[in-house]
């Protein structure tokens, strides 16, 4: 074994070379970036899809089983990413407790459904009436065995005919807005990327609204 030849191969790149390469990489990245943006949006769409699907499921369950189904949105600080603070991060639907019986409790029908990390429902009455109306607030989750969530929840109920218990029927009264937590500068400022789910209080019909891209 000879020693490696000591020529100028290990001198690395010159400053000029590195600069040129960097510039080229940046230039090409700029070309690719628009397509890459699409992929960053996936988590948000997945989060909205989860909520949309489970609200529809809860409504169908209420009709099929002919009994009211309560939908809860849990508000808590994520135990893993603790810097996030309290936000709406999960939902669940349950058989509603018997209103005439004080001791009865809601029975879980679904698991607790967690939104993708970094995806939350905005906690501001301007953007999410469905999780901020005072009359919808519940107390500590009482049936919470799957994960240690401590915090409050807001809930509304799908009645057995597919309508909801939401009483206000002014146009566009009931909706929630899904955003990326990282985009949030304050709890009242709406980020530029968001998706809003609107629900009709009588028919339970859901509608998805979002600003056009670009």
């Amino acid at each position, binding site marked *: *074994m*000879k020693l*490696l*030849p000591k*020529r100028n*191969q*290990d001198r690395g*790149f010159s400053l000029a*070379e590195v600069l*040129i*390469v960097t510039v*080229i*990489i940046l230039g*090409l*990245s700029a*070309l*690719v970036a628009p*397509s*890459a943006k*699409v*992929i960053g949006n996936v988590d948000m769409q997945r989060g909205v899809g989860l909520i949309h699907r489970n609200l*529809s499921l809860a409504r169908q369950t209420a009709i099929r089983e002919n009994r009211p189904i309560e939908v809860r949105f849990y508000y808590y600080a994520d135990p893993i990413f603790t810097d996030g603070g309290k936000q709406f991060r999960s939902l669940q639907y349950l058989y509603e407790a018997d209103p005439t019986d004080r001791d009865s409790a809601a029975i879980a029908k679904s698991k607790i459904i967690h939104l993708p990390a970094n995806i939350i429902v905005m906690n501001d009455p*301007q*953007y999410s*009436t469905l999780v901020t109306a005072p009359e919808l607030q519940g107390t500590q989750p009482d049936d919470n065995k799957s994960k240690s969530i401590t915090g409050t929840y807001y809930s509304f109920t799908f009645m057995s*005919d*597919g*309508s909801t218990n939401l*009483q206000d*029927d002014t*146009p*566009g009264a009931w*909706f929630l807005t899904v955003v990326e937590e990282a985009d949030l500068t304050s709890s009242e400022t*709406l980020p*530029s990327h968001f998706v*809003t789910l*609107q629900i*009709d209080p*009588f*028919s*339970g*019909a*859901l*509608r998805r*609204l979002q*600003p*056009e891209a670009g």
Partner: protein
Amino acid sequence: MRANRSLPNSPLSGFSLIEMMVAIAILMVILTAIFEIVDKTRATFNYSQSKVAQFRTARSAFQTMTRRISQAVLNTYWDYDDPEDPLQYQKQSELHFVVGPSGSPLGDFPELLGGGETRPGHAIFFQGPFNYSADRDNRNFDTLLNSWGYYIEFGSDEKFLPPFMRGREGISERYRFRLMEFRPPTEKMLVYGEELKKQPPGFDFYQWFRSLADDYSRPIAENVIALIISPRRSRNDTPIDEVNDLPWDIAPDYYYNSREFQRSSESNEPRFQVSKHQLPSLLHITLITIDDRSAIKLEEEFGRNVPDLQLDSLFQNASRYEADLETLENRLLELNLTYQVFTDTVAMRAAKWTNLTER
């Protein structure tokens, strides 16, 4: 050995700038291609998703509507025909059930709502025990009566958006056909008003929904382009026209009004005597919906104007229903629109059809 063999060609010299640039360029091209493919796949997926979602929403709205309609009531009772000089008992009711042309008049029958071509097809208005009150404390009553109704309307969605979205950048108004649900709270049930019982002429027995439709109607499904309602009697019911014995002889022109006898007491057709304070046994309901991509196509072509689907001459004669439906479907295919037709025959639970003319 390996290392030795390649030594003369100086393996430690690394890649040259050119090599790096070429490699990066190739990488970028591949990445762009991958992103492009992902994007296209996603778009295709979203397209089929939205189509499925659109038709699911419409189906759900259709079921909501048929369930509500089947619960319509007239709360009929028997009373003297004339309190001053009673001769016999007669069916009486304080409520009103009406099916008819929505936007434009049909023959001798006035339009139920008006609005011309922005409200195509038929409309239905009735009362039912839907227990909706503006006052939350009244919820315990359980069977409060409400006025209710359904019709199609074309227009902007602006006023139905969440308040924060109205006029916001990136949110544009959508001009669409929608299935509207008329649902004033029980406090606004005007049907008990004096107007309803007055004798003609010079009164408007459609007042109870005409005056409220703009304020108390909400869209329950988008992109629904037609609502066709044909009142029918069941096979066992006595025919009005015994020769032809058609199930729609109680409303051959799709027009049915439980108070039509009030409008023209002299020249009353037999069918209006029969329909006096009666609910039809059956309602044959058809809903036609298009998907959102088709709606966007229409918006590109017609803008804010009502798309010309040539509906106005259709669905005026119940015996031509099949032919009219075919004409409409051909028109939609011609415009290259994806559509779906929902049909159902709803049995009216509160209907106790009797044909008194047979006695």
